[in-house]
């Protein structure tokens, strides 16, 4: 455990001195928190009488008891709520993608691998170093959003709808699982390429599923429900376990040292 902590704190000491990475860790959550709050701010006021022309199929997407205008407002906000699910995928990519390839390029990997640290300990340290800031940033942003929503929501019905337990599950359960998925994918890419920029670009592919969900919801093709969040979390749990296993298996010290020039 001490070695895992050492790797984790070492990663943070390095990462938080890198302005580009630091900027993306701070700026992304700020932007993603501000967007739904701005929507709420500009759509605040009495919305009870708005949207009388909303079709009944649309109303089924909202919790019962909301007026069509309130439903429209909740629907609009829910598009941006998905950004809180994108955050734990997006932020760790910056850290994890650089994690192994960065050590290759500074040639610090060989002395590190010569120490009595196991592959599992090394990857666990790097995993936690990338996942913890992402999860904390997401939770902090969501907390700030919750506070803002309390102040800006037009009434308790809308507030209850936008702070639905589904979103709490999405942020507090699916969020960390998404972060682990993102980190392990980025670590696998990072250990197999020789250029930090390529590692970051390839690792960004892990954002695709959440982006598809985001655009699918905008286009009305899918809509995040409690059942879907539970299902998504269960699938993520399995995929994460598989990726953790693969990340350790694919991290071949020998190939990393000898194939890289």
């Amino acid at each position: 455990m001490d070695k895992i902590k050492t790797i984790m704190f070492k990663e943070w000491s390095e990462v938080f001195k890198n302005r580009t990475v630091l900027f993306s860790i701070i700026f992304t959550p700020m932007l993603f928190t501000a967007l739904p709050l701005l929507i709420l701010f500009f759509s605040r006021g009495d919305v009870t009488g708005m949207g009388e022309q909303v079709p009944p199929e649309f109303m089924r997407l909202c919790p019962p008891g909301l007026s069509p205008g309130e439903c429209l407002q909740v629907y609009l906000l829910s598009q941006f709520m998905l950004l809180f699910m994108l955050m734990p995928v997006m932020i760790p990519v910056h850290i994890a993608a650089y994690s192994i390839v960065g050590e290759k390029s500074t040639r610090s990997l060989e002395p590190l691998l010569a120490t009595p640290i196991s592959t599992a300990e090394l990857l666990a340290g790097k995993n936690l170093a990338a996942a913890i800031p992402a999860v904390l940033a997401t939770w902090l942003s969501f907390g700030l959003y919750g506070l803002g929503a309390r102040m800006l929501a037009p009434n308790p019905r809308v507030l209850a709808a936008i702070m639905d337990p589904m979103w709490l599950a999405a942020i507090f359960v699916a969020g960390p699982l998404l972060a682990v998925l993102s980190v392990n994918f980025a670590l696998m890419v990072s250990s197999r390429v020789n250029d930090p920029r390529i590692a970051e670009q390839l690792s960004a592919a892990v954002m695709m599923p959440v982006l598809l969900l985001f655009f699918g919801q905008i286009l009305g093709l899918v809509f995040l429900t409690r059942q879907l969040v539970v299902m998504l979390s269960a699938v993520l749990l399995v995929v994460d376990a598989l990726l953790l296993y693969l990340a350790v298996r694919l991290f071949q010290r020998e190939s990393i040292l000898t194939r890289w020039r």
Partner: protein
Amino acid sequence: MIQTQDLTRRFGDILAVDRLSIDVQEGEVFGFLGPNGAGKTTTVRMLTCLIAPTSGSAVVNGHRVGQEDMAIRRTVGILTETPGLYDRLSAEQNLQVFAQLYQVQEPARQIERYLRMLDLWERRQEPAATLSKGMKQKLALARMLLHEPRVLFLDEPTSALDPEAARLVREFIAGLSQEGRTIFLCTHNLDEADRLCDRIAVFKNRLLVVDTPQRLRSQLFGRKVIFHLRQADQPLADTLRGLPFVQDCTLVDNKLVVRLDAPETHNPEIVRTLVGLGADVLFVGELRRSLEDVYLQLIKES
């Protein structure tokens, strides 16, 4: 401390290390000489359990490579070809990371000890990136020693350093050998090997020869003595060539270059012979071959 038996490593069709068998004694400074691409780094990586041998076996500090890798990693120190420091971390933080990974007892004391020993204490708070090449190398040396390993692997420790920094590093290595540590020194700096090593292995994918620098010289070129005369001629050279212990004698200007097995025994007789023939002997000296001559000859032969 380090024994290998037919240690071999292939990379596809390329045979990087071919049946290497060596035995490095405790406290010995063992030079591993070879040109670039000879397989020196591959050998070090096998012995420090960074890569696995294709075949053969090795025992380092009593632990078998491939079976007790963690034990080997715990008890050896490695200085890689490039310092490989964390540039954004300070010199002290760099050492803290490795002290924790090696689970060093009293890490703060060890870190201070080596930073002071290597004249880095005053600059301990500075990021590694801001240090000079020589300082980075010294910091990497400190990192290698934190856990007090008895076996050290040094891969080209002075290759990128200016002469002054290289001298400091060499002096430090000499100090380490005086502490009784076993040192496996990869280098292609022949002067360095000559000064530091008890024995030298010349290696080019396979072991060409192992011996002390002194014996390598005499084995390859024999021992030669130069007799400076006031006036030398061919009959004098022919006379010396006729002596039973003289292997060869050549005339160069007013000098006779005589090849002998034991100059200490036969020089007086040669001098007596020359004086008896009426020659004025001005000066007698041994012709010393540099290790470079030995090395180049071996590599050429291979």
